[in-house]
């Protein structure tokens, strides 16, 4: 057994998924499906077999060593849940029969694991950039005009974030620090701000968050299930790793948590509504990283862990609805409970889980975070995060759930969805409840020892009261909460409207200048051509005597005045031989 264990240790779970992605990209349909299931299973096994404190290096230039695998409790927790998510996501997309998308999804998942296990800055930035590059294909593969435009905006924003991070990393490396470690200088330097900004873009911190709510609703149904799980959680990992206890992040997180739920109240597109809740949920985690105590970091990791499960479950449910009905707006949906009972049930479990209802993963993880804020002497932070939690009840457990499945029936025709989607949703729902009922399974994967019992009578009653208090308002105001066929603009407005006008105007100006010079140049050329058509004629007019023996002196014979082609070739060959001789001899 010991030998088996050592042998397995050598596998990096991220590289297993990336290799799987390579296989998937050329295998035919059946074997591809096998790889899509087996590779994540192997990755889970590999993630479980890595021991905390393990390190693997590779020699690199200038005597530096790439630490491509460095495991501790924090990174292992993330690597494990990322591998589990790869399995759920791949099962959900088994039917798509599109090698490119399946491969992109696996590269994306593998890159995320690579980033959390990276021990040095260069490995981190390598995998970090690979996330954006692989995930953009999950958007583009939808292939309609909106998706393609959204994909371009997505990749541009991420390239900018990646470059900011890279600039910060260059400063770090040239300053002599090569390993990824917390940036806890007394006075934040340039590298600190550059890295924070780069990570903030991926963490979707407002006002840098609009790429998320812009792109995720436009991705393919299967792609958005992956996207909601990885990019922002890798950024949460980076914030916990690099900026634990940064006071700034506490308030940034609180603002995020509330910003997301307020925009979600207005939203009509179901996946965009869920995307706003990613921002809200990541806000909880960012605040946890900012508080920085052992309990708060445990809370942030627990939330990231369970968020991956229930958020992907919600995206799977929403995707199933879109797949079955072809509709994505709440105004067009309603009363699907009878037509899609299983999807309604799984979505309901995800919706209650994200809201933190007892016996779900959300309950046991959100409690940890709120308790950490209170224990750290921050009642305002606790209450504001608690308020954001009400918004989650309101928008997902009540509004989205009700308007999609239980509201007035719109007489929608529903087509059958693939079986594998049900399997994946059942898996996600099972994990939501498993971790909710047995919280120690979750707590044992957290970076620090947990001394907290979520299931006290007090706490369960509090949650029940909070939920019902909010429900009364929801039920009374329900007519006001019905959405309309409108959209909400967000900070992407700045680069989609004024910046677009600016780019457009700049391009037009440059074109105008080029055209003006082009026309003048063309005119001049036209006027000059006759002068050079026959140099002899011009020469005779200007006092050169014609040669006496020439019968037709005014006719210009080109060959008389230029070298034969052969001479040029000869010179070229000679030059080549001389150069070659110079180099080799």
């Amino acid at each position, binding site marked *: 057994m010991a030998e088996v264990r050592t042998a397995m240790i050598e596998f990096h779970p991220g590289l297993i998924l990336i290799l799987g992605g390579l296989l998937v990209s050329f295998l035919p349909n059946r074997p591809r499906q096998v790889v899509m299931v087996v590779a994540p299973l192997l990755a889970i096994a590999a993630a479980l077999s890595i021991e905390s404190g393990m390190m693997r290096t590779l020699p690199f230039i200038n005597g530096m060593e790439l630490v491509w695998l460095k495991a501790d409790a924090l990174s292992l927790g993330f690597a494990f849940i990322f591998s589990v998510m790869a399995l759920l996501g791949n099962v959900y997309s088994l039917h798509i029969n599109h090698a490119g998308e399946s491969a992109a999804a696996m590269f994306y998942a593998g890159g995320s694991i690579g980033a959390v296990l990276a021990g040095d800055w260069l490995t981190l930035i390598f995998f970090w950039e690979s996330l954006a590059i692989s995930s953009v294909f999950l958007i583009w593969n939808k292939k309609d*005009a*909106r998706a*393609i*435009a*959204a994909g*371009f905006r997505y990749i541009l924003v991420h390239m900018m974030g990646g470059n900011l991070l890279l600039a910060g990393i260059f400063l770090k490396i040239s300053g002599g620090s090569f390993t990824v470690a917390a940036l806890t200088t007394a006075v934040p330097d340039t590298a600190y701000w550059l890295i924070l900004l780069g990570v903030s873009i991926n963490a979707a911190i407002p006002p840098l968050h609009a790429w998320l709510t812009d792109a995720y609703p436009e991705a393919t149904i299967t792609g958005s299930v992956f996207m909601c799980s990885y990019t922002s959680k890798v950024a949460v990992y980076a914030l916990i790793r690099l900026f634990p206890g940064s006071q700034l992040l506490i308030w940034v997180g609180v603002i995020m948590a509330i910003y997301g*739920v*307020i*925009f979600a*109240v*207005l939203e009509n597109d179901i996946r965009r509504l869920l995307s706003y809740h990613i921002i809200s949920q990541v806000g909880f985690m960012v605040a946890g990283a900012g508080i920085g105590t052992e309990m708060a970091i445990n809370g942030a990791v627990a939330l990231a862990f369970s968020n991956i499960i229930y958020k992907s479950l919600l995206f799977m449910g929403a995707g199933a609805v879109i797949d079955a009905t072809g509709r994505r707006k709440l105004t067009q949906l309603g009363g699907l409970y009878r037509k899609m009972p299983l999807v309604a049930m799984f979505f309901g479990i995800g919706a209650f889980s994200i809201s933190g209802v007892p016996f779900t993963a959300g309950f046991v993880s959100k409690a940890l975070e709120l308790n950490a804020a*209170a*224990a750290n*002497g921050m*009642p305002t932070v*606790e*209450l504001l995060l*608690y*308020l954001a939690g*009400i*918004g989650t*009840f*309101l928008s997902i457990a009540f509004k989205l759930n009700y308007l999609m499945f239980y509201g007035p029936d719109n007489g929608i025709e529903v087509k059958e969805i693939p079986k594998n989607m049900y399997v994946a949703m059942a898996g996600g729902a099972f994990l939501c409840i498993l971790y909710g009922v047995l919280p120690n399974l979750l707590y044992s994967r957290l970076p620090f020892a947990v001394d907290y019992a979520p299931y006290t*009578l*007090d706490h369960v*009653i*509090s*949650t*029940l*009261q*909070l*939920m*019902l*208090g*909010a*429900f*009364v*308002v*929801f*039920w*009374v*105001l329900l007519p*006001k*909460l019905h959405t309309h*066929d*409108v*959209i*909400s*603009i*967000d900070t992407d407005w700045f680069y*989609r409207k004024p910046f*677009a006008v600016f*780019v*457009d105007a700049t391009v037009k100006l440059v074109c105008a200048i080029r055209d003006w010079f082009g026309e003048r140049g063309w005119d001049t050329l036209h006027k000059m051509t006759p002068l050079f058509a026959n140099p002899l004629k011009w020469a005779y007019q200007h006092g050169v005597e014609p040669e006496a023996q020439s019968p037709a002196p005014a006719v210009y014979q080109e060959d008389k005045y230029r070298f034969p082609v052969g001479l040029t070739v000869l010179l070229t060959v000679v030059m080549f031989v001389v150069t070659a001789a110079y180099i080799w001899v």
Partner: protein
Amino acid sequence: MTEKNKRVLIVSVVIIVLSVLLEALFVHPHGHYWYHTFLSFDAFFGFIGCLVLILVAKIPVRSLVERDEDYYGGGENGND
């Protein structure tokens, strides 16, 4: 408001009242701040919080951010 809607509302309020009774009888008051021990605080917070979120979203925020669906151009195909 229909009969059914009223019934749902009454049941919710009854459960809240019962939960407050349960809290008063069986929960030993403990916590970091006053609101952790304040009886029925969570029901009030849920009620008021939900109202505040809806009002903030539906009045000031909505008037700022709401646009027509084709605001960014029909096909959203680049800047053309």
